[in-house]
Structure formats: structure tokens, C-alpha cells
């Protein structure tokens, strides 16, 4: 039975902050097939195309038929925990300060034996389900969970090391004027966040939904304008050391392409809000988050980017917007590398057209702000890195995997 987490006490500012360490994150290139699966919350192993043998650890040659055709495929995740041990002495500094640490051998129904981290509610000799998780180093590891959910199972210390669960954490929603920002505040409050800071620029200007936003439990409105370096810096100085998750909801959506749009004014605004806004947030909040990656129950955990799925493939109807989103995606990849030493994850949430005024003329299917917010919270609870929300986002991702050139041509209409 998992002991439920208790709300962390106020931190003694005189006490030293435990510095983040990472477990060994080096993997063979082939093994990063598991990292790719873990990033999206899938359970995939190599399956030989010729003889169908399911293979683990990752190999470059099938141990049954010597084939080299070994793609990663989703496979059933059930298995039996055959033997377990509790590691009490570790040569690795990360595990040294986290022992005792349980690991075990799981015989998968699909075939291979996987040495896995064990959730506290797993029992030797009983069935388990395996997941691949990204550990603090950003590499995939197998984690065995009890076959059926157990009370408070998300609070298990091994599991929580690999997720960014908002429970008892403090969140900053960067822009509360948008419908997405407001939905996000509600979702994080419902998920048990300790404080939901919501940034509002020019607070004297009223906006739709303001009263409702103020009524959400544990919401604290703070001044923040992502286009103003001074405002971002001030907010970081004020609250940066107690913000564990940032969700950048600042948006700038305008239709129009590159050739047919006149002048640079809108493009500059787009870049200022989205790309430079992201950079301001990263520079102001990134260093302290990276420093606080192992700071107890409410350690710094994640930076969430909301990205149009058209960051992955330009949509000429919203061509300049897509380009700005692509710039943000590239920046997010850099931030991932920079925040990884602190064990802070960068979650990229790719969404299709939203059910908001800026996508008024776009036909369905569209994503409601509430659905987007729910997907963000779920992604953090699962500890994944890449989330696709909505049918359009899923469609683009699938077509991109098959034939990017066809997709590019078809996006032109």
C-alpha cells in the first residue's frame, strides 16, 4: 500500500538545497527506440519482422533468426514479477541517496525477461504491467506497476521520480487572459497543485472569465507580461524559487502566409510573444528550476510548451504562425538539453486547431481548451515528453511518420 504524500511544509530558507543528480543516461543508439516510446507513453519493444520474436534488451540482430529487421512495435505490457531484490548499496551517486531501491525480473507475456524498477505495490510472484518511463536522465527505463491500480499509487517514490505529477507542486500559468490559460488553471487546481500562479499583463484591463478565474481554489493572480523582459524577470525574482511547473499559455494566432502577408508587423508580434516570450521565460526561470530538480516533494519538475502541431509541418493558411511555432519547437529541444542536468522535463504538447475565436473559420474537429488542459495534466502525471492532442494532431503525426513529402504537398491544399 502506497503511503500518501503529505503536503510539504514551508521550506526553511537557511537549509541547503539538495542538488540534482542523474542516473546514468548513456544508451546505445538502438536502445533509444525505447526512449522514443517512453517519450509518448507507449510500451514498445523490438519485434523481428521475419520471425516475430519479441526482443529485449535492444539488439541489432535477431537472436532467433539473425534478421536485421527489428522495428519497435507496441506489445502487450503484462507479465509476472519472478524475483525481486532491494538494492541497498549502489556505486552510483544518484541511487546512493535514494536507496533502498527495489528492482526485479519480470517475465513478459510477450516473451523476454525485463529487469525493471518496481512500484512499491508490486509483489514477487504476482502479475504486473510494465511501462517505459523517462528517468531523470531523460532515458527510458522499465517500471513495473501492480496489475490493478492501488490507492495513492501515483505517490510512490520510485514512480514520482519519473513523473512530473502536479500534486503538491506549484505551477505558473503564464497567461490567464486566454481561454486555454483559464482552463489550465482549473485543471491544475483540480489535480492538487499547491499554488496555481496565473500571470496577467495589465491587470487593470478586465477580461472575460476574470471572475471565474479568481474563484478557482489556490489560484494566485500575479503580474506577468511575456513580451516585457522586466516583467518576466521581476516575476522570477518574486516567485521563481517556488515554481515547480511552468505552462506557457501565451498565444498569438493570426491567419496568413509568408508571401501574401503585407509587412512584418504581425510577424514581429508573433515572434515577440511566442519565440522571444519563451526565451524570456527560459532565461528568467530556467536556471533556478534546474537548480531545484531534487528539492523534495515539490521539486522543480517540468516546463510545458503548448505548440501547434503545425510546428511539425507548415500549414500555409496559418503559414507565418506555423513558422513561429516551429521556432518554439526548436527552442524547446535546446531547453530539454539545458534543463536535463537538473532532471527538469520539457513537455511539448502538440494540438490541432482549438475551439477558440482565433480558429473561428476552421472546420472541426477542434480541441477545446479543457481537453488541452486535461491532456497537459495527464502528460505530466505520466511523465511523458511529447503529447498529441486532438484528431488533427494525431493525423499529422501519423502522416509525418509515413511520408513527410506527401504531407507537405497536401497541406498546400
Amino acid at each position: 500500500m502506497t503511503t500518501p504524500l503529505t503536503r510539504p511544509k514551508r521550506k526553511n530558507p537557511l537549509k541547503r538545497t539538495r542538488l540534482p543528480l542523474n542516473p546514468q543516461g548513456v544508451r546505445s543508439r538502438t536502445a533509444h527506440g525505447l526512449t522514443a516510446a517512453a517519450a509518448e507513453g507507449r510500451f514498445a519493444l523490438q519485434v523481428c519482422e521475419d520471425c516475430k520474436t519479441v526482443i529485449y534488451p535492444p539488439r541489432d540482430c535477431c537472436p532467433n533468426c539473425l534478421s536485421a529487421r527489428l522495428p519497435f512495435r507496441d506489445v502487450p505490457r503484462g507479465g509476472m514479477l519472478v524475483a525481486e531484490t532491494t538494492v541497498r548499496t549502489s556505486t552510483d551517486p544518484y541511487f546512493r541517496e535514494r536507496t533502498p531501491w527495489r528492482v526485479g525480473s519480470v517475465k513478459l507475456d510477450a516473451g523476454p525477461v525485463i529487469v525493471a524498477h518496481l512500484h512499491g505495490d508490486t509483489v514477487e510472484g504476482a502479475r504486473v504491467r510494465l511501462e517505459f518511463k523517462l528517468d531523470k536522465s531523460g532515458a527510458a527505463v522499465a517500471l513495473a506497476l501492480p496489475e490493478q491500480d492501488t490507492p495513492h499509487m501515483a505517490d510512490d517514490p520510485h514512480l514520482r521520480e519519473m513523473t512530473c505529477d502536479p500534486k503538491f507542486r506549484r505551477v505558473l500559468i503564464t497567461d490567464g487572459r486566454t481561454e486555454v490559460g483559464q482552463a489550465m488553471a482549473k485543471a491544475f487546481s483540480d489535480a492538487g497543485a499547491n499554488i496555481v500562479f496565473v500571470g496577467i499583463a495589465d491587470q487593470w484591463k478586465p477580461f472575460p472569465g476574470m471572475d471565474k478565474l479568481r474563484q478557482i481554489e489556490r489560484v494566485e493572480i500575479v503580474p506577468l507580461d511575456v513580451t516585457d523582459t522586466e516583467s518576466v524577470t521581476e516575476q522570477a525574482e518574486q516567485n521563481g524559487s517556488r515554481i515547480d511547473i511552468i505552462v506557457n499559455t501565451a498565444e498569438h494566432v493570426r491567419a496568413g502566409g509568408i508571401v501574401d502577408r503585407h509587412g512584418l508587423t504581425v510577424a514581429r508580434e508573433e515572434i515577440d510573444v511566442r519565440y522571444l516570450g519563451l526565451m524570456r521565460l527560459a532565461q528568467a526561470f530556467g536556471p533556478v528550476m534546474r537548480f531545484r530538480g531534487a528539492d523534495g516533494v515539490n521539486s522543480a519538475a517540468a516546463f510545458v510548451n503548448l505548440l501547434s502541431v503545425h510546428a511539425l509541418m507548415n500549414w500555409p493558411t496559418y503559414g507565418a504562425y506555423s513558422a513561429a511555432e516551429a521556432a518554439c519547437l526548436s527552442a524547446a529541444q535546446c531547453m530539454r538539453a539545458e534543463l536535463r542536468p537538473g532532471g527538469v522535463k520539457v513537455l511539448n504538447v502538440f494540438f490541432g486547431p482549438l475551439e477558440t475565436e482565433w480558429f473561428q473559420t476552421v472546420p472541426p474537429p477542434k480541441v477545446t481548451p479543457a481537453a488541452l488542459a486535461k491532456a497537459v495534466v495527464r502528460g505530466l502525471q505520466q511523465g511523458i515528453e511529447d503529447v498529441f492532442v486532438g484528431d488533427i494532431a494525431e493525423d499529422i503525426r501519423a502522416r509525418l511518420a509515413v511520408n513527410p513529402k506527401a504531407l507537405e504537398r497536401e497541406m498546400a491544399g
Partner: protein
Amino acid sequence: MTHRRAAYDNIVICAPVTIPYRRYSTHSAHWWLGRSLHELTRAAGITPKDIDGLTVSSFTVGPDTAIGLTQHFGLSPRWLDHIPFGGASGVVALRRAARAVQAGDADIVACISGDTNHVDSFRKTLSTFSRFAQDAVYPYGSGGANSSFALITKHYMNLYGAKREDFGKLCIAQRDNALSIPFAMMKKKLTLDEYMSARPIADPVHLFDCVMPCAGAEAVLVCREDTAKSLGLPMVRMLATIERHNAFGGDVIQHRGGWEVDIGELWAMAGMRPSDVSLVETYDDYPVIVMMQFEDLGFCKKGEGPDFVRGHTFTNDGTFPHNTSGGQLSTGQAGAAGGFLGLTDAVRQLTDRPIGTAVADAQSAVISGFGMINYDRGLSSAAAVLARV
């Protein structure tokens, strides 16, 4: 149809060399290997030029392999092999060398093994031990071999009812044997109370189930009987050997080693039964593997290891003398030299020159090797039967 294997006619082992172990060393593996080679030439009364065959086993000699060492040591062998099979290296080196000498590819083969132990070298060896270890073992608690063997031990206990006391008995007997070895890492008698109350390392593995990593080197010469005679060297005969890699890949968790595949051939080739053997040297990185070897080498049936252990003393002066120089559990694990520790002492026992307590009337010995936890199990197994000349 399989061809009958040729006997090791007139092939002998001589000049067993041990460079006394040290817990930590600031020297390189090259230094330790060089000391063993130097000591071999002195013990055999030969010059480096007389060595025309060489095998090398070492974990920490990288980036060099056997070929780089020929230039480092100024040797010009006409036959050379690098044998990186960890605990199976000793027996495997013997097999390779014996056939080379038998075929006339070399006359005198030096089989050397050794490793250094810098303050941080153990951790580094663990994290990069193999690709599977890097991808699928080390990130899981980084307990190293301790946690891999903990799973094997737990599984074996579940299957066959072995108890910690049974493992303890083996460790205590080996400690008794080590008390007469001056360079053993562990110098104090071990009691069952101390064994049982030792701190847990990776349940059910506790402190005294684990070897102490150290620096050291071991070596022997393999040559023809007439060569050894002309040098005036005491020698032992090689009767039979086996070797097997990655056996029983379908076992969910390892509960047997590759010996089980080849054991009939080993005893048939030796012309002996298990009960004829005077002393047994197993590879003892953890006591559970010792118990498996008793079963798989035919000293008892599968699953009867715990009962077999309860029925013997395993000391040099008792019944079923085993790991006569204390084994790695008490004398220390000098890396790949651990695969030679039992070999050198068996040769000494069979030529009446033991470092520690002598086994009375030692006529023959079994040396067993086990090595390379690549992912979740040891891949290599090997064994040799040696006899007094």
C-alpha cells in the same frame, strides 16, 4: 554425428604464479600482468624469448589487448590469444593453449591474467561492462553484479529451498581455508552469527556473500611434458575440459549453467567419476553460483545443492575440499585473475606446494569457471579436470 575429441596427450601445466593481492593499487594492469610474466620466467628458469605463445585476460588493461602487450613486454610470440571471458578465462586459456601446444603451433604458452584496482575503477567497470549492462542493467539502481546475483539467488532460494545459512556455510569454510593465505583480503575467522547479521547489500545478498575487488595477477605455463621435464618443473596433467557460452537462454532466471550441457563429456574424457576427485575449485563470485556448480558438475542432482552443502565441511582438512586458497570470497577478486585463482592453487596442491593448508593425498582436481553477466545471467561456463603426474 560428432567427432570424438582428441585427448590432451602429454600436455601439462606448470609454474603456477600468484602476485600477492592488494586492495587498491596505483599501478596499471600492465604492471600487474608484467609482474606475473616476470615471475613466470623466474619460476620456470626461462627467458622471455622462450615464451612463444601468450594468452592475456584482463578487464582493466584497455585500450590495449594481448597484441599491444607483446610490444609492451618485448615478446615475439608465434601464437597469441586475448581471452576476455572473466571468470571462465582460466579454463578457456588452458584449453586454447593446450591445443596450440599439441598441434605444434607453440611450445611454451604463458597464460597470464591480472587487473589493477584504482579507487574508482570498480564503478567505471560496472557502468560500461557491456552494451546490455549499459542499456538495461546499470540504470536500474546501479547495484552492479550484486543486484544481478541477488535476483539469481532469490530465484534459486524460491525454487530449491536454499537458506542463507547454507550460503553462509560455504563462505565460512572458504574463510577457514583463507586463514593460511598471507595475502588474503579477509584475515579473520568468520562466524555464522557474523555472516547472518552482516549488512544487506541487495536482498538476499549480504556483505559476506560479496567478493572484495582488489588488484592482483595469476599465471601458469602450458607446455609438453618433455619440455617441463627438461626444465625440471613440477607439473600436472590435463585430462579433460569443457566450455559453453550462452546456454539455456530460455530459462527465465538462471538456475543452471552451461556445464549441464557438457558434463557427461567432461567425466567421460577424464575417465573419472565426480566422487573420484580430491578437490574442487569453483568460481565463487557469489555462493549461489558455487551451489549451482556442485549440481551442474555432477556432485549432486539439480536442486540438491542445499542438502549437499549441509553434508560436507569444504575445508582443506575436511570432507570435499573446496576453493583451497580461500576463493575470491575471502582472498579477493583481482578482476580476470579471479578466473585463475582456483587453477593456480590446484596446480600447487597437486604438486605438493600449496601456499596454505595442504589437502591430504591430492590426486586430482576439478577447476570450474563462470563468467560475464552480460545482461541478467552469467554467459560463460567452463571446467577442467587435472591430475597429478
